[in-house]
């Protein structure tokens, strides 16, 4: 299911200026598109627009259109959108309903609201909890979990609903390195299974490795979009508030010295390979 954002300008209620300015973007079905940029660039607002929270929940003033699977989000209800788009918020505290007493019931919440039969709900909740490694804590209260576990809980509650489009707004921000790796493994598996993914992320090592498309945002606008090698290879990347992965900077340094004229790899292993060739080790 594809996502089309067409000339979207959006202003939150009571705010003097727009959070998004004339944003156009296309994410084809099955793509893994990463949104990068400094805080305040508009990444979260764009995530919310794709999920329909902008404008349905936040209200405000919106021009342009967002289409998910060809359907206009403004014309759809939040309930209809919930079957097509799942969103994992940056802060798991914003996501947890507070209406359930156990991790299991929390993950079942969305399916119950969709009227999913009991047996199917139980099976899907179990599958989602196992996938994020929370099956063992299924009987605990969501609020007894650590920050990282809560973030994985938020992901599980979206996985259980199995929507074709999944949006993750900095979903690894509260996680430790192994938690981040686990979440990106889940994201990579979702990509393999054909989901369309829109992922806002500050950890560029993962963006470089996994994205099929990178969108660089700044001040509510799209500055650049294209394959990761092109966007993360921009000379002015840091000036737009995004740090280049150090392993890419090393290979770029070799290019500047005239020691390497090939591609800049998108993985650490690839960079090690280049260094091995150049140094003759």
């Amino acid at each position, binding site marked *: 299911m594809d996502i089309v954002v067409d000339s979207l300008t959006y202003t939150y209620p009571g705010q003097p200026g727009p959070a998004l300015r004339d944003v156009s973007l296309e994410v084809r079905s099955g793509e893994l598109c990463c949104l990068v*940029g*400094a*805080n*305040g660039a508009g990444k*979260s607002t764009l995530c919310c627009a794709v999920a329909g929270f902008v404008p349905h929940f936040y209200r405000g003033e919106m021009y342009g259109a967002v289409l998910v699977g060809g359907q206009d989000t403004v014309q759809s209800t939040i309930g209809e959108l919930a079957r097509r788009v799942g969103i994992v918020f*940056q*802060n798991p*505290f914003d996501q947890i309903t507070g209406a359930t007493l156990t991790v299991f019931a929390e993950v079942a919440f969305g399916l119950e609201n969709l009227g999913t039969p009991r047996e199917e709900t139980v099976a899907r909740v179990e599958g989602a909890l196992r996938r994020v490694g929370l099956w063992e804590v299924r009987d605990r209260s969501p609020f007894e979990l*650590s*920050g*990282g576990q809560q973030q994985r809980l938020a992901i599980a509650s979206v996985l259980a609903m199995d929507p074709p489009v999944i949006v993750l707004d*900095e979903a690894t*921000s*509260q*996680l*430790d*390195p*192994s*938690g*981040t790796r686990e979440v990106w493994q889940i994201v990579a598996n979702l990509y393999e299974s054909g989901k369309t993914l829109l992922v806002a992320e*500050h950890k560029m*090592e993962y963006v470089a490795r996994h994205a099929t498309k990178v969108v660089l945002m700044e001040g509510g606008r799209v500055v650049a979009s294209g394959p990761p090698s092109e966007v993360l290879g921009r000379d002015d990347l*840091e000036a737009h*508030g*995004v*740090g280049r*992965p*150090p*392993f890419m*900077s*090393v290979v770029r*340094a*070799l290019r500047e*010295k005239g*020691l390497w004229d090939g591609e800049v790899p998108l993985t*650490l*292993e690839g*960079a*090690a390979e280049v*260094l*091995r060739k*150049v*140094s003759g*080790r």
Partner: protein
Amino acid sequence: MQATGIKGTAAKTTAAATARADGKSETVERAGSLDTAGIILEDVCYEYPGGVAALKGISLRISQNETVAIIGENGAGKTTLAKHLNGLLKPTSGRVFVDGVDTRGRTCAAMARLVGFVFQNPDDQLFQNQVFKEIAFGPRNLGYPADKVERLVKWAAGLVGIEGLLERHPFDLALAQRKLVAIASVVAMDTPYVILDEPTTGQDYPGTQKLATLVAKLHAAGKTVIAITHDMEFAAAHFARVIALAGGRVILDGTPNEVFSRPDELAMASVEPPQMARLGQRLGLEECVLDQEALLRALGLV
């Protein structure tokens, strides 16, 4: 920089009184002699009510003006350890001394003059309706006069680069900005020890740069900075000492070079060395390299 009356080991003893609700006052004796200066943990064990043993015998000493990064996976005991440094938690067994003061005999409020603590989640900490008031709350509570409070607020806001947000409501700000407000509100208390629990979490590239500058400036001001972090690039580049925890124990303690040259032990803590070190290890370098220049030099490419 504000004078705290306490500068490194120069001051022999400083007494500070903290008013308590019952009208009594509590005094923190701050013995700054060489033997007792710094934070000393003696075989500290901590068990949470319910029986989870979070710290299993930690002994270490952090000297004044050190910069220390504490690393390790979630659940390793990092935050529990940090909460012992300001008396928020008291050891189940063992002892913690801050400049010679045994934390067991002190309230957290009394320790707050010595040790500032920034929580991981700013929303656990922020409660005022204006950023200025939020940052001013700490120094006001320490009983400082209004002009000193204002000076401290501006200094702290400047250190984390949020001077432009002083009139705003904290909850109108994005999470990463709220985090900077929480950091400034603790920095403004001008304590000799500053503990930051996962300061870079959720920060973008410019935010992380600001925090790196903050660590350097606090260090230059003579303070001891202790940060819990999951960001190994940040730990390697901006701290002189790294302590790795796993399962409630210290498994590595040394300079970034020493700690990040031990990938096998780090794997026990579910930690990967910074990217340059990983590249060097993949290429079979014996020495640990932590930045691009060092890597290229070690490979004979400079």
